[in-house]
């Protein structure tokens, strides 16, 4: 019964919540709008937006040494997770069968494990930094912690199901993924999509004023 | 007739119908005045207590056994011998009288049409035993051997064993068959023999600095090279190297897998042993020499 539930309705429900939630949030972001900037445009907002979007991938020179740890751990985690998510053999097969209909060549098994190790290490260090650093600890809301821990649990159950031998562990992993999808639109996980408009908005805002943000 | 089969081809201790048989009178009855038929040796229960030629309708008539044939058999056997009488009547009657249909002749390995009527040892063209060359010389070169000029003496005269000291021979593997293409495409057989190898005696391997499992170049006496795995074993004697000949798909170290038509390449590819073998043709059948040649084995 549980298997039917997890593989069936709950999966589609969580997908629905995810897509509708994300779209809803993005629309909300767009339609909140902001006051028109009445100043004379000194430079093009668009180029500012694009420039800022890419410049934010690299930490500012001055504060780089201070935040080197979160940047490195951040990239380790995100790149490990994306490589794992989109190029791990079981995931590629899953996407091919359940969602997209087409597949691509997956990473070899050892690369999949190394990516997972990078992701786990990055996430642990990032989450510990959030707890250890007094400033980030103060500004961390419960939602941040839940998002981090939930992602960790999803990855951990994924690791537990590596042997692909028992349906029980696969279901557990899929169930945590479903929880993650449902929680996604209401949490900081939205930054997966909102970081694009937010950087561009700031970039455009300052670009219009000719400021190199 | 319920014949039990003939386990031993030449066995005069049993009646022909029980599986006995005599030597075949294949080469006629007489040569140079010497009687080729058997003298004083005959099968058990044979009514003819001496040698006799192959059976044909004339022989039966002369022996007076022609009437043992049924009329239809007589019709079929008229003007024919035991090989061409499709009714099998001649064979039946011959066996009924205890004789073997193909006659009873002397067991003489005397093939007068061959260069060596009686087989004798002739040292191979590429040999490291120069002493045997003098004792057992090979044939003279022949200008036209079925219109093909074929060299024997002139090659044997050259001493290759200085730069190619090791005797090279080839042979079978139980896992593969023939050229190996089919059996190397069989998943279970291919897994048991995954690499083309050469068997070297530990002493030769030691002298050449080769360990078991190394890649080695086996260079034949005519400078063709094959790159194979070394298998250091005592199966071969010192100074001898053995190569199985079921492999193909590599040529002098280059893997030619992409040349196979799509999806037709076997699981296992390897050097063809005969690449490293040398000139030499049998004096009768023109069969190429793939059993004894000379080679040099160096670490790849």
């Amino acid at each position, binding site marked *: 019964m549980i298997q039917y539930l997890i593989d069936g309705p709950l999966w589609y429900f969580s997908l629905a919540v995810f897509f509708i939630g994300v779209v809803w949030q993005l629309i909300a972001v767009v339609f909140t709008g902001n006051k028109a900037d009445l100043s004379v445009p000194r430079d093009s907002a668009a180029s500012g937006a694009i420039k800022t979007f890419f410049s934010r991938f690299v930490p500012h020179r001055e504060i780089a040494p201070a935040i080197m*740890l979160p940047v490195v751990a951040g990239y380790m985690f995100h790149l490990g997770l994306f490589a794992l998510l989109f190029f791990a053999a079981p995931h590629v097969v899953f996407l091919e069968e359940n969602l997209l209909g087409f597949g691509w060549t997956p990473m070899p098994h050892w690369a999949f*494990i190394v990516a*997972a*190790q990078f992701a*786990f*290490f990055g996430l*642990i*260090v990032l989450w*510990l*930094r959030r*707890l*250890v*650093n*007094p400033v980030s*600890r*103060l500004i961390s809301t419960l939602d941040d912690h839940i998002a981090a821990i939930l992602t960790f649990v999803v990855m*951990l159950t994924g*690791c*537990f*199901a*590596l*042997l692909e*031998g*028992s349906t*029980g*562990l696969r279901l557990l992993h899929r169930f945590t993924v479903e929880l993650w999808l449902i929680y996604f639109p209401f949490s900081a996980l939205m930054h997966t999509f909102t970081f694009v408009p937010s950087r561009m908005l700031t970039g455009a805002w300052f670009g219009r004023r000719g400021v190199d943000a | 007739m319920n014949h039990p089969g003939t386990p031993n081809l030449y066995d005069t201790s049993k009646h022909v119908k029980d599986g006995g048989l005599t030597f075949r009178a294949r080469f006629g009855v007489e040569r140079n005045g010497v009687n080729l038929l058997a003298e004083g040796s005959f099968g058990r229960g044979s009514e003819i207590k001496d040698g006799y030629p192959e059976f044909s309708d004339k022989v039966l008539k002369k022996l007076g056994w022609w009437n043992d044939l049924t009329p239809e058999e007589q019709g079929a056997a008229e003007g024919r011998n035991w090989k061409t009488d499709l009714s099998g009547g001649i064979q039946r009657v011959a066996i009924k009288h205890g004789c073997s249909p193909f006659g009873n002749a002397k067991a003489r390995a005397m093939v007068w049409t061959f260069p060596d009527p009686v087989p004798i040892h002739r040292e191979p063209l590429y040999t490291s035993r120069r002493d045997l060359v003098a004792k057992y010389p090979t044939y003279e070169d022949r200008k036209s051997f079925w219109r093909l000029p074929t060299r024997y003496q002139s090659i044997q005269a050259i001493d290759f064993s200085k730069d190619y000291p090791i005797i090279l021979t080839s042979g079978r593997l139980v*896992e593969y068959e023939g050229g190996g293409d089919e059996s190397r495409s069989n998943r279970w057989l291919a*897994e*048991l*023999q*995954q690499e083309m190898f050469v068997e070297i005696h530990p002493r030769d391997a030691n002298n050449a600095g080769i360990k078991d499992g190394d890649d080695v170049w086996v260079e034949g006496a005519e400078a063709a090279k094959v790159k194979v795995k070394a298998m250091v*074993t005592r199966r071969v004697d010192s100074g001898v190297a053995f190569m199985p000949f079921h492999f193909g798909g590599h040529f002098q170290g280059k893997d030619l897998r992409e040349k196979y038509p799509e999806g037709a390449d076997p699981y296992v590819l390897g050097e063809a042993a005969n690449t490293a073998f040398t000139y030499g043709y049998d004096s009768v059948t023109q069969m190429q020499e793939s059993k004894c040649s000379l080679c040099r084995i160096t670490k790849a």
Partner: protein
Amino acid sequence: MLSLVLTLAFGLQLSSADASNIPPQKPNVPDGVSALNPGSDLWREVRRRDGVGEFNEVNQGVLVKDLLSEIQRSRQVPQGISQVNQVDSGVMINAKGRRWAAFRMTTLASYSGIALAAIFVIIITFYVVRGKVPIEGGLSGNMVKRFTDYERITHWTLAVVFLLLAITGLILLLGRPLLIPLFGKEAFALLASASKEGHNLFGPLFLVSLIMMLISFARRNIYEKGDLTWLLKGGGLIGKGHASGGFFNMGEKTWYWMVILIGLVISISGLILVSPNFGQGRLIMELMHIVHAVSAMILIVVSVGHMYLGSIGSEGALEGMKTGYVDINWADAHHDRWGKHCHEEDLIVSAEEYARMQGQPADSAEPAMEQGK
């Protein structure tokens, strides 16, 4: 190195002299007749090459020295050959495996279980008897920075990974005798499969965080002159007086080097165990498993002591790793030389300053024990 010595002693003490190498008897045949029988000679050789003395309860303990000698001997005596080219496919009979299996399930599992239970009992009785070691003169509220953020992240990463590995490892080792009766085979199989995958994946992470730990803490853990006296005085746990210590006292230094060295041994043997694709034979894997398991058990048992001492055992200890600041009285009590250094360099942060750093509004500057949201 330490753990290798321990496993040697561990193995040596357990098993009596092992009668496996029977000298080749000469067949009792009158001299004139040579009745050498290659058949039986062959099987005697196979038996000796892979053979073991009669396997009985007495010598079922694995002799690590025996395994080491077996590994060399397996290279001298020519192995058999087989068309199947896999690991050890040339070895006809590997009787050492059976002894390792018996060792793992009887000696290793039971001793580990006993050791684990023992350390908890010791800690609880110690807590009941001694209770929380208070700081003389109570907390002063003035704090001094002990660990930077990076150091604490390193410590806690190693701790998280270690705990995860320890739990999954113990599930694999002691799961069968303890958990199968509780959950039944199917459920435990899920747990064990999860533990195995988790253990294998997090193994290398332990090595990485171990190296980070080595880099950031090695300098302050080098033994100094005063450390021996610390040891002689029982480190202040036993007896009255207080042993003097630098930034790290002798106990903490020993624990640090134990973690690093035994940790490295565990990691290396673990890496060998986790990568069977380099064709190492079973003997090496069995030996690595013994080294891995015994060293890991040592580390786990001692780590329980460390966790106790660092949190409940002594007042104010956890603050160092939790916030990076410790009370100056705590420093003077446990690490007087470092305390004196802080006084001289005036590194002390007053209570109000500390409260403000923790983000409380300035007026409610009660002692800095409670902070955070």
